Every structure is written in C-alpha cells, then in structure tokens.
C-alpha cells in the first residue's frame, strides 16, 4: 500500500528538487516526491491512499537534534522551571521571569506542590535577573515546604529552613566550610557536591528519573524531532541510562529514534581506566541496537570546561577578570585518547567551548591527519562557543564538522560582553556564518537543557542573532533561513553519519517529516521560532502534536 502525503508545499532540502507538493511512502520509506502527476507510474498498478490532513501545511524533513542529554534532561524536567528565558513545553508555556519580584511571585505560586516526594526543587534562578537568593528570602515566601532553588548554571543551590531540616544538614557539621554559607542556606562548588549527595536520593530516584525520561519523550516530540542523539551515554551511570532509555523508547509508538554516542571516559572507567579496552567495549555496544536505539562507531571526548559556567579555556587575552578556564581532559592525554579512536575509524565528537579548547581539538586533528589521513571522518566540534575565523578555516581544511549551540548568542552574548570576555568576542560566539562560508558541514543543537529542545528556536537564533536584550550580535555571522533549515536537517544527519537515510526528502530515504503551519523559508525570519508544529511523521506513521 502506497500512502501519499499532500502538502501546500514540501521543502525537500534536496538541492536537485527543492520544492514538491506530495510525498509517496511505502513501508516507512519515501518512494518518490513530486506532484500527483509525476507519481502516476507508481500509482497505476498499486493501491494507494491520500492523506490530505496536511493539504494546507508545509512539510519539511524530520527535524534532528544531534546533541542533547536525555539523562540530564530526565534530572531537570521533574524540577519546576522558573527561568529568565521562555520555555515551550507540551504541558504549557513557561514564561520568562526576569525580575526579583516576579521570581518571588512565581516561586510562591508553585511551591505548595512538591516536585520530588516532599521536596520542592526549582531550577533556573540567576542572580543577574532574579536578585540574590538566600534562606531568609525563601523562608519569607514559605517556611514549611522544603524548598531548593537550583541555579541556572547548576553550580549553586540554596535551601530554606525546612529543606535544611528535612535533609538533616546541621550547622555544626558545615559551619567551618568555606563553600557552604549556612546562614544564607547557599551551597556552591564543593559545598554543592556535598548538598547534591544529600539530594541524589531524590533527583536520581528511579521513579522520578524514569518519569523525567517520559517527559523528555513528550518534549522531543513536541519540538518536532524525528531523530535525536544522546551525545554522551554514560554521563551518570551507563547501565542505568541505557536500561531506562530502552524502557521508554523501545516501543513502536515512540515517534523518534535515538542515536547513542558513548562517553569515552565513562567507557574507560568501566574497563579499569583503560581507553584501549574502553574502545573495545564501545565496539561491542551495537548488540544493543534496535529500531529506536542505535550505537555506531562514534565516541564523545571533551577538551575544556562548561561554557555556561565560564570555565571554557580561552586563548589570549582570556577573561576580563583574569580567572582561568579548566581542562576536562589533560591536553597530551586528549591526543592519546583521540588517536586510539581515530586509528580505529571512529567519528570523534569533541566537546569544545572556548577557543583554546577548540585549538587543542584542531591541533590534535591536524596531527592525526598527518599520521593517518582519513576522508569523510566526521570529526565534529560540539558546542563551538568561542572560535576565531582562522580556526574555522583550519578545521575546514582538515575536513571537520561543526555542531554548534547557537542559543549561546541569545542567552549569553549580552552578559558575556559586559561581564566575561568583552563585546568583540561575545558578539561572535557561535561563529556560524563563517562556518558556512568556509563550507564546513554545520549543524545546530540544543544540548538540552542548555537550550530549548526546539530546532526551530536554534534555527531562529542562527538566522537572526538577536540576544535576550534585543540586540543584534555580529550580523555577519547570521545564516540564511535555507542554511538554517539545512543545519537542523541534512547537516545534522551528516554529523551523525546518517545522511544516506534521513535529513532530506527524496526517493529512498526514511519517511521522516515535520509538519509546519507556515513556511520557514518564507515567513519573517524573526517569526521562525513561533511557527506552529502540527505533527511529525516517523517512518511513515503520523504522530499529531
């Protein structure tokens, strides 16, 4: 049986046939896209049905997020979001909360419904918008419910009296600690680790975590995705993460597939700290593969620290206040680990945030290319916070890909211009326009919850580069809507090594589509993020939103 999807217009992202009207699908694959007229030879001797639900809609290739973290999301989603940015969720809109007063109001309204057994945990507080948080400030709103306020950057949290009492944190135990401010109820850095030890039984509780993954499933569908990648399986606990994902995603009603990329250090950790054995372990993971979950010869490495926490490694002149970034892997060991995977033919995905972290990855790639040249190797720079034009040129010459978090520009460029690295570098973070000019295969990702799991929002930022203050940041680094759409479809597929199967609409590919109410290439570019997503089609099956 052939099923025909009719649309107002189909944007194929296939340069040979960019626009069509209908798509014919058989057994979950596209047999042809074109017009009813052009499909006649297929239809002559075959039964077919026509779906006209989307007759007034625009069909684009199924959207792909090539980098998010289901496990991290499963921890965060059960918390209550009060943040300075807007989040669209299937269960409702979380409006931006941008002042201390509105923060208190939002917290007061929500806190009577606990999120984690008896505890109420909220995520998203940021001092610059919401003012300093303290035990007294939360007590004044509610002193009975145990309330925990977790900072947007994850690096700090604050508790009220009831929470301290509930978690049995006593003044005598922590009063000498330099990173626990008991009077204000604040725990940061090492103190945060101490607090998280007390909270882990709640945030990593099997039931709550599984519920978090279920919520993520809704979020991913709601964002219009048909493929996502878990870009570091093993972040917390390899076996638990894999089993939980199998439980949630391995059923025929799941509207998307999850590409799994193993965390090299975690795999080495399971192999006695030995990366050679870690590689052997990764090479055996494909025995877990199913219709919805798939490992491949891909691995995740890290160079420098987190972009949101301002511990990216920077080249001269560094941070304005002179503080230092951090290495997540010792540079010379990074090279040794990368070599193991390079020589075995892997696609290596490297977390890089600052320009010095990026430089390490590029230098390493250059050495490895000299030792053992490879083509179409898909060495991918992930996140891509700060970079230089010269680096983009080098990585183009070396055949690397970029998977960028464009949202940095939206959320952080004003903040970092004023408080971190200055205007010139802050305005050109996520240097995506140069990547396209240098012909680097470039995709966009959310790194959810670092950005909303909503590819049209990533596209919107990359196309407009308007930050949360409404300023236009480095207009030269904007990309066109066509390029933006490529970045969340075919380029994302290329980054994952799946461009032969997904990422565009053409004969032979999987029938993965996202159905939109408006044309993302024709609307006012500033409205791209607001386009209504009506449904997704995963391997030929319709999943309404």
């Amino acid at each position, binding site marked *: 049986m052939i099923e025909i999807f009719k649309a107002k217009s189909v944007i194929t992202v296939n340069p040979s046939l960019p626009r069509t009207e209908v798509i014919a699908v058989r057994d979950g694959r596209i047999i042809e896209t074109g017009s009813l007229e052009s499909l006649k030879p297929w239809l002559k001797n075959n039964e077919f049905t026509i779906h006209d639900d989307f007759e007034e809609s625009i069909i684009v290739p199924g959207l792909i997020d090539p980098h998010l973290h289901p496990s991290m999301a499963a921890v965060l989603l059960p918390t209550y979001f009060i943040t300075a940015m807007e989040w669209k969720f299937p269960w409702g809109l979380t409006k931006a909360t941008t002042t201390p007063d509105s923060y208190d109001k939002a917290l007061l309204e929500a806190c009577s419904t606990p999120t984690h057994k008896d505890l109420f945990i909220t995520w998203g507080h940021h001092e610059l918008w919401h003012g300093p948080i303290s035990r007294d400030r939360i007590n004044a709103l509610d002193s009975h419910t145990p309330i925990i306020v977790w900072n947007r950057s994850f690096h700090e949290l604050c508790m009220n009296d009831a929470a301290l009492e509930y978690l049995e944190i006593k003044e005598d135990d922590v009063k*000498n*600690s330099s990173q626990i401010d008991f009077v204000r109820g604040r725990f940061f850095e090492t103190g945060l680790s101490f607090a998280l030890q007390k909270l882990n039984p709640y945030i990593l509780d099997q039931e709550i975590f599984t519920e978090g993954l279920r919520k993520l499933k809704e979020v991913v569908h709601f964002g219009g995705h048909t493929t996502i990648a878990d870009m570091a399986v093993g972040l917390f606990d390899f076996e638990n993460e894999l089993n939980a994902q199998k439980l949630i995603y391995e059923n025929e009603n799941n509207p998307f597939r999850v590409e799994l990329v193993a965390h090299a250090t975690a795999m080495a950790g*399971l192999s006695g700290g030995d990366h050679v054995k870690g590689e052997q372990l990764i090479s055996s993971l494909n025995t877990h593969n199913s219709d919805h979950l798939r490992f491949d010869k891909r691995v995740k490495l890290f160079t420098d620290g987190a972009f949101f926490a301002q511990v990216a490694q920077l080249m001269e002149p560094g941070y304005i206040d002179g503080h230092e970034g951090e290495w997540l892997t*010792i540079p010379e060991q990074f090279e040794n680990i990368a070599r193991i995977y390079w020589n075995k033919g892997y696609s290596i995905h490297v977390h890089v945030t600052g320009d010095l972290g990026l430089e390490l990855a590029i230098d390493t790639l250059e050495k490895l290319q000299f030792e053992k040249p490879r083509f179409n190797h898909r060495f991918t720079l992930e996140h891509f916070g700060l970079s230089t034009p010269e680096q983009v040129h080098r990585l183009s010459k070396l055949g690397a890909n970029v998977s960028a978090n464009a949202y940095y520009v939206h959320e952080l460029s004003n903040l970092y211009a004023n408080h971190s690295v200055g205007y010139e570098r802050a305005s050109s973070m996520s240097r995506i326009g140069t990547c396209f000019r240098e012909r680097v295969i470039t995709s966009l990702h959310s790194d959810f919850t670092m950005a909303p799991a909503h590819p049209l929002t990533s596209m919107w930022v990359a196309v407009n580069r308007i930050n949360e203050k409404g300023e236009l940041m480095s207009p030269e680094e904007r990309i066109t809507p066509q390029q933006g759409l490529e970045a969340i479809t075919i380029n994302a597929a290329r980054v994952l090594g799946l461009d032969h199967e997904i990422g565009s609409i053409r004969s032979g590919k999987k029938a993965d589509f996202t159905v939109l109410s408006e044309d993302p290439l024709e609307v006012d570019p500033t409205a791209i993020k607001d386009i209504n997503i009506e449904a997704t089609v995963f391997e030929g099956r319709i999943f309404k939103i």
Partner: protein
Amino acid sequence: MKPLTVICGYLGSGKTTLINHILKSTSFPIGILVNDFGELNIDKYLIENEDELTISLTNGCVCCNLNDDLGDSLNFMLSQKVKAVILESSGVALPVKMSNYGTSWPGYKLSKLLTVVEGRTLKQLLSDKFVSKTVKSQIIQSDLIYINRYNDFDLELLSSMNPVYKKEEELDALLENIFIETDTVGEILPFVEEHNSLKTEVLLFDGPINQEDILNFLDANPGIERLKGWISDSENQSWLVQVTRSERDFTVSKYQTTSRLVVIYKKDLNKKILYK
C-alpha cells in the same frame, strides 16, 4: 577533623614518587585519593600503599557529573582508621579549587597545598600552548613547592613565581611540613564499616593464594563490587589484583608482599574458598 593534604603537579612531575616517599617515612596510616580523571595513566597502581587505603576517582564538573565520587570517597575515609588523607590531583587541577575540599568538606581541614615541579620540564611547560597558565597557577597558588630534577636556572625561574619551595635533597624537611596535628586526629574507627549499602573488609593470608582461588572466590560471591590488592601465588610470584564488576585483572607485581586484599561488597561474603 581529618587533615587533608592536596598534591598538585603536571603529568610526570613526580607526584606519585613523592607520595611513596611520604608513605615510607610515616608511621601512621594514610588514606590516598587519586583523581586520575579517567586518564590513560594509572597512577594508583604505582602507589606502594600496602598498609593503607588507596581509592581512584574520576571526578569531573558538577554540571556533567552529579555523582561526586571524590565527595563519596572523602566521606568513606572519615569512617576509616586513617589519620590523614592525601589527595593526588589530576595533572591539570588548580590548587585553589582542590583546596576547597580541605576547607569545605565537612569533617576535613586543609593541611597543606603542595605542588610538585619537575625542574627539567618546567621551562617548556611554562611556554606550552595549552597548559602554561595551568602550570603557572599550580605554582603560584600553592603553599609549598617540591622541586626535583632541577638546575640553578630552574630554581631561579621557580623562585620568581613562588619562593616557598623545598628541593629534592630537602625531602626530610618537606615531610615534616606535610601534615598538621596528626596526633590530635579523632578516635580510631574499626576498618570494617558500612559505606551506604556497601561493606569493606580486608583479607590477610598466611599461605599462597593463586589466581584460580580468586576467580572461584569471585564466582561464589556475586555481591562483590570491587576487589583490589596483592597476592603471592604458590610459585612465589606476586600479582596486583584489580577487580571491578566488569573487569578481572591480574598484573605481575614487582613488590614482594604477603597476600592482602580489600573487598568492597554487598550483603554477605563467603570466604571459605580462600581460607580452606
């Protein structure tokens, strides 16, 4: 409060060698935490810590790793009879950050913040594209530097950044400075203690133990989470034994030792196979 000594220093600077010196020259039990950061090196195996407890860690950033195994291990050490704890940091750790564990973790106080420097690589590291700043910070932020394999030029370079240093021939003076108030450390706890649901036990043996004995012992005890230590077999060959849930590893050891094993396990331990 247990004293915590933090040792920083770039790869190959001699941190492990210094720790071995410390272990040889002290008469009280010391707990060692090695943050090997999931690296290729296995410093832990090089520590000749026969009487004490060595734990290897892979600590990362809190936003990518909610399970702080350094914190867990610090808590575990509090329950052990060790009188002091040494934290061997990863090669790129910044002393100021690591010292926070001494000043912030309940039950601990910072004893010394020490960085080990190797003279002959110092100049090169200070101009390295990627780690020059890190190495410089390690020197500047420390209370005390220990420098080995150096010449006059290296000393001059070092003293311009941090004049409080001890040279390798002043090791004795350094060792006197490494711990504070070790004799006022609180009560000594029995070695076998509950660690969440996990229990730890030390097994000592008079006679030889062979690899097969260990394998049979593991098969009979599915509750074993980790096992490490040394065995001396019937041919008088010593082996370093390292067992995790996914790995059973025997490495030839050059240390002649009596057989001793640390077992971390759940529920019960059936030791009959080993003590037949």
